[in-house]
């Protein structure tokens, strides 16, 4: 997931860096210390041997010396020292070496100056062609501390000492890789102890986001992560409580609407039943009573439609709406819907044969009736209904030539009780109007099929609204004889 910049990577890098820094620092210190100690010891022992030897040999040198005696002196000093180092003796301008072939450039002027001016034993470490050397020089003094003018220098290789300290360095270098690996391993372990709870929390959070309100994490230990886990669980608890309260309220209000509609049904059933009597006998009533009777009859019918729609909406809300699908011919269904309501002559039809799909005929009828009824009520003729087939489903398009819908109305067309009447005027006074739920019910019916209803304005240069019902091609489920009901889709 987070290959770079992840917690694990960062922890590993930090651990390795810390390990490296501490290893390198301690190594450097140890190296310096050991190198100093080794060199110091070599220096001291060489210097001691050298001075001892000089003190032994020097009294036998005749002063002032000539080149021969100087050379002999140098050779004797060299012979008495382990490893026969190169020894150089100087007296004023005379210089003699124990090994005439050796290169005495290792004895630097700086050392000679130090010996001459400080008048005591001095030494210097020099690199001569990649080889480290220790050069010691000392003035030869008499018993009475008088300088004799004689200076002796000796060089010895520091190679063994260098090899020793390099060995230390190599050992450390070899040791760093395991240390780094170990550090990385520790980092991974540490990361795991941190990451596991973090990952668990992440998983639980995602589950919660997906709507699983029972998503919880196990609290381990008492560290900050455990606190976080506890907080998460607490939050989830609170969330579950408030969500269930909300759902409870929602269910209550939906139940209330359903109950109210249901309670309205019984008086309405009685009123609806006897309304025909009012219609039939209105002609024999005085004019005012006749008008009142007709109004009561008409409004009873309207109220009855409203309650019907409320009930239907409640069924969708409670998930009680079932799809009763069978193979239908869409064109034929549309034609029957219009004929049933006497709209056939008021509408231009374009109904090709053989557009078939599996759908609930009754629900398709409701949708078509709603869309066409709307177009006839609010739009202007000509209203046309077109059935079409596309690769992914079938369509019924209802178009009118009215003023169309204002852009601010379009998003609200399918909302319950949203009335765009201000813009879509009622066409006549006798129009009893819809319940305000028609489009919402049409949409719910389409959704039950896994389809939808869309609205837009015409784009062909004519004003008017276009409603399109889209139903997906469904695999037809034959009804089982025991009236198995299909699960509502969507």
């Amino acid at each position, binding site marked *: 997931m987070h290959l770079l910049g992840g917690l694990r990577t960062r922890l590993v890098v930090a651990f390795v860096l810390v390990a490296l820094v501490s290893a390198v620092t301690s190594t450097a210190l140890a190296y310096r210390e050991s190198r100093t100690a080794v060199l110091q010891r070599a220096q001291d022992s060489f210097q001691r041997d050298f001075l001892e030897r000089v003190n032994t040999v020097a009294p036998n040198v005749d002063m002032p010396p000539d080149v021969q005696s100087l050379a002999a002196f140098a050779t004797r000093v060299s012979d008495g020292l382990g490893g026969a180092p190169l020894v150089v003796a100087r007296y004023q301008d005379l210089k003699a070496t124990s090994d005439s072939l050796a290169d005495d450039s290792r004895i630097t002027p700086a050392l000679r100056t130090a010996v001459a001016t400080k008048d005591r034993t001095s030494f210097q470490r020099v690199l001569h062609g990649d080889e480290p050397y220790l050069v010691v020089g000392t003035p030869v003094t008499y018993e009475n501390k008088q300088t004799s003018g004689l200076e002796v220098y000796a060089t010895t290789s520091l190679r063994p000492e260098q090899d020793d300290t390099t060995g230390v360095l190599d050992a450390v270098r070899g040791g760093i890789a395991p240390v780094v690996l170990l550090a990385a391993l520790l980092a991974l372990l540490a990361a795991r102890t941190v990451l596991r709870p973090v990952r668990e929390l992440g998983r639980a959070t995602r589950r919660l986001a997906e709507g699983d309100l029972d998503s919880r994490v196990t609290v381990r230990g008492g560290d900050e992560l455990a606190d976080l886990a506890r907080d998460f669980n607490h939050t989830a608890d609170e969330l579950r409580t408030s969500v269930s309260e909300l759902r409870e309220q929602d269910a209550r209000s939906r139940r209330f609407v359903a109950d109210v509609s*249901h309670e309205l*049904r*019984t*008086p*309405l*059933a*009685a*009123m*609806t*039943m*006897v*309304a*025909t*009597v009012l219609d*039939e006998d209105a002609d024999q009533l005085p004019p005012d009573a006749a008008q009142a009777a007709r109004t009561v009859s008409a409004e009873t*019918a309207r109220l*009855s439609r409203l*309650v*019907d729609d409320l*009930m239907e909406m409640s*069924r969708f809300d409670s998930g*009680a*709406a*079932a799809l*009763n699908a*069978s*193979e239908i011919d869409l064109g034929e*269904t549309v034609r*029957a*819907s219009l004929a*049933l309501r006497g709209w056939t002559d008021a509408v231009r039809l374009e109904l090709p044969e053989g557009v078939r799909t*599996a759908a609930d*005929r*009754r629900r398709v*009828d409701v949708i078509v009736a709603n869309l066409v009824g709307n177009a006839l009520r609010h739009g202007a003729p000509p209203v046309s209904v077109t059935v079409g087939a596309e690769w992914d489903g079938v369509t019924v398009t209802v178009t009118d030539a009215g003023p169309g819908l204002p852009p601010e109305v379009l998003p609200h067309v399918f909302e319950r009780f949203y009335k765009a009447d201000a813009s879509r005027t009622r066409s006549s006074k006798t129009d009893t109007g819809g319940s305000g739920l028609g489009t919402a019910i049409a949409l719910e019916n389409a959704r039950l099929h896994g389809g939808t209803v869309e609205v837009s304005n015409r784009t062909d240069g004519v004003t008017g609204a276009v409603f399109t019902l889209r139903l997906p091609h469904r695999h*037809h489920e*034959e*009804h089982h*004889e*025991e*009236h198995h*009901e299909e699960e509502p889709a969507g």
Partner: protein
Amino acid sequence: MPHVLLIEDDASVRDGMELVLRRHGYDVDTAATGEEALALLDGERGTKVELAVLDLMLPGMDGFEVCRRIRTRTTTLPVIMLTARGDDQDIVNGLEAGADDYVVKPVTAPVLEARIRAALRRAEPSPQTAGAPLDQGGGLRIDRAGLTVTKNGTPVPLPPTELRLLLELSASPGRVFNREQLLASVWDHTFLGDSRLVDAAVGRLRAKLEDVPAKPRYVQTVRGFGYRFGPL
């Protein structure tokens, strides 16, 4: 003067229906509960009742149970159920209990009357049942003139709707009828009827005729299209 029994617990609805039906020339008996209705049907007047309009939501015995009991007493009485909810499950259950048709409350008088007339027409002996008595192998015998059905010599009493459906299908053995055609020809539904009426009636018919209702021989399903009689 068709004689109708109204079974409805709400007094206003009951009175309203009674008023309208009387005005249109029906004889009407009313009952406020299922128990009362069954008692009335068992009584002397019960023999005159030609159709029952039955509310499903009744105090005491519910409408489904009343419908089942009516069916055990008399096979020929058409039952139209009134569903207050129009809930799909209610309709399915009511049809399974043996109702011939249903209307959803609130219902207008013209609609209720049209349904009553159609149900009564189904219950009348059809005058034009031409065709020889069908006597296929398998022991089913349909006497189209006498309107009786026997299975292996035993009479099978069929409620009017189921009988009409069987006559319609068996008149052209092997021909496939879709649900809409059957709604129009059997139920007289000139509106967009509910195809579950057909499915429920077929189910009830199979339960009475078929040896193995799940593997029907007489009333066969043609997937995606409808039903046909046979071929045997």
